């Protein structure tokens, strides 16, 4: 088991390496002087020259990459052209907010999805199942930004229960902070619960057809025990993979929700950086989000054997 974990962790390393190479190459593929791109057009000649020396522009690409990677590993992601802050600090602050919203929303969605999926599979083709599937399909079809806007309209404006714009950091004032986070989280839950429920239902349906479920019933176990001890672990495993994918897609896609609710998150940062051509920030965000995704998948891989022991012992 430990061997399996180690192998998986080691396998993530080359992926992270390749990802960083891809990000590096992407930014370098922008036509123009790399120094001007990274320092902005208004930079003075002295800093440009110094930067060029640092980047080692006269050396070969692999060497340039290694210099860049060395700085990144030391935490130096460069400086934002427009916000005049170290990119690393900027990204880290914003990441915390986005990550907490994503994890809470996906956590809630996953719990609802597994419960609903199991229930729907148990009641397959009857009223309960049809209701669940219909709702899930509807949820799948709603774009997050639209739902966000509608919720904002309803709860923020028409009913006035929740604040419409702005944000209060959790560390400053938890009592008020959560008010700003409810609607974004609810939006994400609505949007993601559909796809997760369908996955959970599909795997639960498959599992309930299998013989060991009949065998468990033949032992005299109650339906509850059969569902939760026998069906759930096997049905949950594929849903877990889906959860990883959903978290990953939200790492990028949360930009829209953050835009609707004007939250200072990572998604909005990258969008604004693209507008402003703030390449150091773009690069930093791409790198951080991609690495985060790799780590998320790693965690999913490591959790998987809990539900499906066959994987660890291959």
């Amino acid at each position, binding site marked *: 088991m430990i061997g399996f974990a180690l*192998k998986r962790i080691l396998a993530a390393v080359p992926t992270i390496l390749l990802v960083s190479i891809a990000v590096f190459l992407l930014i370098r593929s922008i036509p123009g002087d790399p120094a001007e791109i990274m320092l902005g057009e208004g930079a003075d000649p002295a800093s440009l020259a110094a930067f060029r020396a640092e980047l080692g522009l006269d050396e070969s690409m692999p060497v340039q990459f290694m210099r860049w990677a060395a700085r990144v590993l030391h935490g130096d992601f460069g400086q934002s052209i427009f916000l005049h802050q170290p990119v690393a600090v900027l990204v880290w602050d914003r990441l915390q907010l986005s990550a907490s919203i994503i994890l809470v929303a996906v956590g809630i969605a996953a719990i609802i999805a597994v419960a609903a999926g199991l229930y729907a599979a148990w009641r397959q083709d009857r009223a309960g199942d049809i209701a669940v599937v219909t709702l899930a399909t509807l949820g799948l079809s709603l774009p997050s930004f639209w739902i966000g806007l509608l919720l904002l309209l309803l709860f923020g404006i028409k009913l006035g229960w929740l604040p419409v714009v702005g944000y209060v950091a959790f560390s400053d004032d938890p009592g008020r902070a959560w008010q700003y986070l409810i609607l974004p989280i609810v939006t994400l839950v609505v949007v993601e619960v559909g796809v997760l429920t369908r996955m959970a239902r599909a795997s639960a349906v498959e599992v309930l057809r299998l*013989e060991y479920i009949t065998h468990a019933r033949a032992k005299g176990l109650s339906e509850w025990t059969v569902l939760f001890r*026998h069906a759930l672990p096997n049905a949950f495993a594929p849903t877990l993979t889906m959860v990883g994918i959903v978290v990953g897609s939200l790492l990028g896609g949360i930009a829209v929700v953050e835009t609707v609710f004007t939250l200072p998150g990572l998604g909005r940062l990258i969008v604004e950086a693209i507008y402003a051509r703030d390449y150091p920030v773009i690069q930093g965000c791409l790198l951080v989000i991609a690495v985060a995704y790799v780590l998320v998948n790693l965690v999913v891989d490591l959790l998987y054997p809990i539900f499906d022991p066959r994987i660890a012992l291959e």
Partner: protein
Amino acid sequence: MSSQPSSLPRLSIRNLSIGNQTAFVRDVSFDVGAGRILALVGESGSGKTLIGRSILRLLPENIRQLDGDILYHGGSLSGLSTAEIRRLRGGRIGMVFQEPLVSLNPALSIGRQMAEGLKLHLGLDSGEIRTRCIDMLRRIHVPRPEQCLAAFPHQFSGGMRQRIMLASVMLLRPDLLIADEPTTALDTLSQRQVIETMLELTREVGTSVLLITHNLGLVDKYADDAVVLRRGEIVEEGTAARVIRLPRHAYTRRLVDALPRRRGGVVAAPPDEPILVAKGLELSFRSAGRSILRRKKIRVLHGVSLTVRRGETVAVVGGSGSGKTTLGRALLRLLDVDRGTISYRGADVTRQPDRQLRPFRRACQIVFQDPFSSLDPRMRVGALVGEALRHITPLAAAERRARVEAALADVGLPGHADRLPHQLSGGQRQRVALARAIVGDPELLVADEPIASLDMTVQKQVLELFQRLQAERGFACLFISHDLAAVQQIAHRIVVMHEGRIVEEGPCDAIFDDPQHEYTRRLLEASPLLDATPAVTCPSAIFSEAKR
């Protein structure tokens, strides 16, 4: 047939009908006496599984009991509530299923699954449960029982899993055991182990057994009583011995007839020119592992040498893992050997690239085991068979069609050229595969377990088809099988394989009458055979098991 009048039959089926809009089981009645084994015999579609499931109310969603009653110790089960049935499940009436792969939950450890029933029905504490489980595992000769409890089902072989499942069911000492095809998915040796385990455990507790099976050999050897089902109705019942040796109903007779019997008296093929000669074949696989470093080399063939001559049938037998399937594929160059030579009519074909192998491939064909995956589901039968003629160049479309039709007629499927595979039964698909193999007039046919997945009567038909085609067209045949009983009917020579080596070979009669090697003897013992030349209907037929 009723049991002794003095004691109540343990299980009594009375006029049972099961189905939905149509009745799949109609008006079935029989009794299982105390401590006796009753075999419920039938082919697919006979309804035997449904009867087994209905006892514990485990029928699939849309099927229910339509009529009749099920009595357990004289009390009706039909009137019980779900909760009451649940109390019976496991504790009083145990059930074992067919597929060891999916009968045990892959996500839970063996120990947990064994303990579940004990905790539920006997309310023991975990220490006591653990002790009992370990004792039981030891009894069925599972090595290292303590570690076994913590392990997961996929770490064991099919036969072992089945025995573990039997053990965990019998731990609760039920007085009725329903065994639904418990050995069908296993190879011959494992089958025997599983049945013997079942017998041992049930005899000890005095459990009655309802054995659901299509394997008449098992019925003959192990069952006390037998009930023969056909399409949901009973056609015959009685003691097992009587039903098999003196069957009254035509269908029963057909089933018994379908048990392959030895040619008896047919001379071995005259020594003729060799078609395929293999010398010293060695093959290793690297086990599928995640990292390249961790893969282990598994030796599958150890220096195997084999010759197949014109017109003869060589049977290659062995258990799972013996390498026989790999050998079949290696001989046809579908797998590459690491060492050794293969010659076709004197020409070395061991390392030739596919392009140059066309004449070899035309002459040496293969029929696979699984009729469901050996035919491209999107192609019609005519195209499937015709594809084999692609490389016979001077062939006009009309002539090709004619040959395809002729081949289909030969295998008993005239006019089926327009059908799609999913419209055919398993036996029909195997015939199509056979037609595809012979349409090009091959010299050698490799048949890899071609009848294993088929019903017993269908098996007989296909075997006879093999014989007839071979007699008519004169091709040699390499018949790979784990079932000795099947090959005794058609083989001239038998080659026995075990763990990648040939341990014995010789003429069919010699192997059956006087096996030399230990493994051969074990294989023979494990397959109960019916062997005789006179027809079964003759009352004075003599039956014997294979001699030791």
